[in-house]
């Protein structure tokens, strides 16, 4: 059983997130050299007040791993996990700790690498190790809750029960009910990036390309949501492809969902837009953001196996996008091109495209 649990929760996590780790490695150890890492964490170890920045990033990663475990528990194909309830509780806890240790292996490797440069800073070493132990041990309590509560009764919604939920809210209902962590983490990340570039902008001689890069990173962060939407449609709404919905209705619904999805970022950008930057930039960013999501979703419609390449799309999208922005490509033009691609697929390829079946 332990072997099956490990393969379902740990091996599968690394398999499904291979693209994420590829990007992390390329950005974290390609752009930033190992000497820079060493210099940064030596500073943090010498001044423990800086360590919480590391801990916050590690906690986000740990949250991602726990969200994955929760998602696996809900997969119909992983229902066997609930048999763990039949094992003695000590054995179960040992299993959870082993699983979490496997999921946090990159953090442990990085943390121990940090500690090897401690130079007698024992307080910092103790803090680093305590953080890693806490992130490894604490989620077990939640996994225990998951295994003890296998059936979650669906609740009636509280508002407008006598009116049907419009189709453009189906995916939002799915995100809020089934993938709240994915939604919150994506929004936190893209929101933080946007606010970050907006606050950085007035500190030096930057131009609008800095804001465009922020929009690029925030938009690409939504590839995971596009992937989730495809999976949602093809698992639970298979009948969509039997419906006589014309192009304008299909595409209009997806466009509306996109505008709603990016409403928080749009409001944030409007609020923090640096002085001297035209408000038109907000519109351009909206076109660009929504274009990235629409193009990715329609790419998946064309061929389902592209789902597994989402990490590579993120990486190459970042590299090409960065180069294009540095060469002063207007993000509105890039956004319109992405909308154009999505519209072409929806108009001419949607019904002939390959679905999960």
């Amino acid at each position, binding site marked *: 059983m332990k072997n099956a649990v490990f393969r379902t929760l740990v091996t599968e996590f690394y398999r499904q997130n291979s693209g994420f780790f590829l990007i992390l490695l390329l950005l974290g150890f390609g752009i930033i050299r190992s000497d820079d890492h060493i210099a940064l964490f030596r500073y943090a170890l010498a001044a423990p007040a800086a360590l919480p920045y590391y801990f916050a990033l590690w906690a986000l990663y740990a949250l991602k791993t726990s969200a994955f475990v929760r998602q696996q528990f809900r997969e119909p194909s992983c229902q066997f996990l609930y048999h763990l309830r039949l094992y003695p509780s000590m054995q179960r806890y040992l299993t959870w700790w082993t699983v979490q240790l496997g999921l946090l292996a990159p953090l442990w490797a990085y943390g121990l690498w940090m500690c090897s440069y401690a130079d007698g800073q024992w307080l910092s070493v103790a803090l680093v190790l305590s953080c890693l132990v806490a992130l490894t041990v604490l989620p077990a309590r939640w996994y225990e809750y998951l295994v003890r509560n296998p059936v979650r009764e*669906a609740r*009636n919604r509280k508002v407008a*029960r006598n009116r*049907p939920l419009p189709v453009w809210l189906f995916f939002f209902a799915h995100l809020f009910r089934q993938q709240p962590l994915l939604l919150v983490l994506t929004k936190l990340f893209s929101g933080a990036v946007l606010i970050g570039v907006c606050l950085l902008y007035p500190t030096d001689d930057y131009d609008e390309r800095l804001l465009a890069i922020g929009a690029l990173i925030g938009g690409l962060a939504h590839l995971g949501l596009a992937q989730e939407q495809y999976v949602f449609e093809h698992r639970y709404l298979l009948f969509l492809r039997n419906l006589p919905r014309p192009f304008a209705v299909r595409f209009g619904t997806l466009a509306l969902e996109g505008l709603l999805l990016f409403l928080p970022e749009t409001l944030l950008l409007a609020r923090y837009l640096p002085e001297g930057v035209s408000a038109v930039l907000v519109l351009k960013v909206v076109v660009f953001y929504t274009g990235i999501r629409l193009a990715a979703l329609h790419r998946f419609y064309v061929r389902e196996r592209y789902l597994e390449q989402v990490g590579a799309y993120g990486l190459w999208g970042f590299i090409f996008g960065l180069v294009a922005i540095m060469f002063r490509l207007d993000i509105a033009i890039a956004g319109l091109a992405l909308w154009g691609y999505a519209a072409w697929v929806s108009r001419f390829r949607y019904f002939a495209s390959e679905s999960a079946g």
Partner: protein
Amino acid sequence: MLEIRNFRKAYHGQLVLEIPQLTFGDGVHWLRGINGSGKSTFFRSVAGMLPFEGEIRLEERWEVNQNPVDYRLRVNYAEAEPLYPAYLSAFDLISFVAKAKKAPKEQVAELVDRLEIGDFWKQPVGTYSSGMLKKTSLVMGFLGQPRLIMLDEPLITIDDRAVSNVCKLIADEYKKGIHFLLSSHQDFRLTDLVLDAAYVIQDKTIRQAVN
């Protein structure tokens, strides 16, 4: 009523079904086949939910790929084992499909009444039994003004009373000129339903059954 030409469906290069030429005439047709023989693949292809090689034409006018919207307005399909989001209700799903299929307003109420889902259809799908889920899928299969309705295993998981209701509904809709393709492991000859023809799916193709 339905003409199939040079149909070929493969998954990852593995041939599942090949039909050089086949015509389903008007009426109620029964498609038989063992598990994994390709019944659902065939139904999903005809419903326009799966890509395939070849041509499927309804009433010599509407081709599934050439007239995607007009064709889908006239061809309905109810899954054998439907899976819907647990937090949506049958009311949400049926209202959406009814609008897309341009169902007359009174039709939804009539189908909800005939298939007896009124007591639970505003509850979340996650609280449904498999029979309730199946009835929801069947209601969706009858919505609009289709020319062809395909029901994949319409009699599984529902009780005897519901079986009788479904058979009556099929017979009534047939009288209005709607044609049916049904698949079932259960013998339709044991029900009140009058079948026009039976087909068997085996050796990766479909042919008319002798008896």
